[in-house]
């Protein structure tokens, strides 16, 4: 009897442990850190001018909301401080370690208007965003998350959401900020396409790949393109700040939807794999 060379696989199942609350942490963390980064960029555009404290405060609120959501999700919330025990290898620990200084530095920068504190907050925001990307990358049971290209995708998403929120919340009058949001939106699209191609090449579960062709995903893709067009029009002098703010709002909302799908819908587990079929019909040695 010959064995079958093709590996047999058990059906991939969708992960059900991280729900909208976990997605909320990635949404809040991405948008919040993106807002802090956008505020730092705005300060670079206007040297010597007042820093946009409201953007820092909004960023802090987003990060804190995300952390609160994940706190509500964990099984033992009153042991939450144990999250700090493993900085050697755990990106979740590192995220927790960075969160405190990020909030403190952002608050201090907003209160004092100090450029140095703002620069510190921006560095911490970038680190926080990177930690979130690496949390997903370390999830080796989920091909949709553990692919290396998820890291640039999450980074670009955070920047696109944060800069989009910046336009929505009052930064739309700055051509520099509109340009930043447009560049971030386009970068997110490029990262998303590279990610899609990477998943295809790595033979990710069919159920994960099917999400790229889902009508909802297609509609979101169209809206992201619309956001970019609105920002481009605003930069060209059409529609003004309202046009840019609308583009920012769409960029923000579509980023949230992308993450919600990534975390709660497209995350299928790797599943078991039988690399060789048992060769029966002759005595097995004992």
């Amino acid at each position: 009897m010959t064995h079958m060379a093709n590996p047999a696989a058990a059906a991939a199942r969708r992960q059900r442990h991280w729900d909208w609350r976990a997605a909320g942490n990635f949404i809040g963390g991405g948008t919040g850190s993106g807002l802090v980064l956008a505020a730092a960029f705005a300060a670079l555009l206007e040297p010597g001018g007042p820093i946009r404290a409201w953007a820092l405060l909004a960023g802090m609120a987003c990060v804190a909301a995300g952390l609160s959501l994940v706190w509500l999700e964990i099984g033992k919330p009153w042991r939450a401080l144990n999250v700090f025990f493993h900085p050697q290898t755990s990106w979740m620990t590192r995220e927790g370690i960075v969160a405190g200084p990020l909030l403190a530095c952002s608050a201090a920068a907003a209160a004092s208007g100090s450029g140095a504190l703002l620069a510190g907050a921006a560095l911490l925001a970038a680190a926080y965003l990177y930690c979130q990307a690496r949390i997903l990358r370390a999830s080796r049971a989920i091909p949709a998350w553990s692919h290396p290209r998820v890291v640039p995708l999450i980074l670009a998403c955070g920047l696109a959401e944060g800069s989009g929120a910046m336009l929505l919340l009052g930064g739309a009058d700055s051509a520099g900020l509109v340009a930043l949001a447009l560049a971030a939106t386009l970068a997110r699209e490029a990262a998303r396409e590279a990610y899609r191609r990477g998943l295809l090449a790595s033979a990710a579960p069919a159920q994960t790949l099917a999400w790229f062709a889902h009508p909802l995903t297609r509609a979101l893709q169209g809206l992201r393109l619309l956001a970019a067009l609105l920002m481009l029009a605003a930069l060209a002098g059409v529609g003004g700040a309202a046009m840019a703010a609308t583009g920012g709002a769409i960029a923000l909302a579509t980023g949230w939807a992308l993450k919600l799908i990534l975390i709660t819908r497209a995350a299928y587990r790797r599943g078991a794999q039988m690399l060789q079929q048992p060769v029966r019909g002759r005595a097995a040695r004992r």
Partner: protein
Amino acid sequence: MTRYAMVADLRRCVGCQTCTAACKETRGTPPGVQWRRVLDIETGEYPDVRRSFMPTGCQHCDEPPCLEVCPSTATRKRGDGIVTIEETLCIGCSACIMACPYDARYMVDETVFAFGEQAMPHEGRLADKARVGVVTKCDFCAGRVDAGVARGLVPGVDAAATPVCAQSCISGALQFGDIDDPASPVSKLLAENRWFRMHEELGTGPGFYYLWDQEAAA
């Protein structure tokens, strides 16, 4: 050194689930939680269809991805290769569940029994609130192994020092032992048969071996 591992002979496994039942009976895991599972895998198309059974569970990896991501250090690896969870440290964040490519980790949010609110005798005896809201998994019956070794018994040879799944296997498909000991039964099985490990490309170094054929030269 000692490196405990499980060897599953796919030619012998008949999918009876006795190992699963023995594990649940001994460890009192709640409904839906199977630290030792047997997958029923169909391949091919009619009329050339094959059905195979694949015992699985925690693979007690050399480089456990669950340990790396655990923020609380609840997941630990012993010197003998057994990966454990310190339930009093676990925060139930599920990061390890997302990191385990073998679907070997579980978490329940409340105490539930197989037949509603009334616990069966073994469930009532083994129900442990400390296991609610934290991640659990197979630990190769570490307590049983340790107790056996303390009595001078040999895990994988002596029943009282062997994980209950391997001990209960009706066909001898599941074998447990020290693969660092060349004279152990599991070492001989690995030397005399062809085997694979699941998702080895991920670099986890699983401690769960699947026999599928004799060695060509044997």
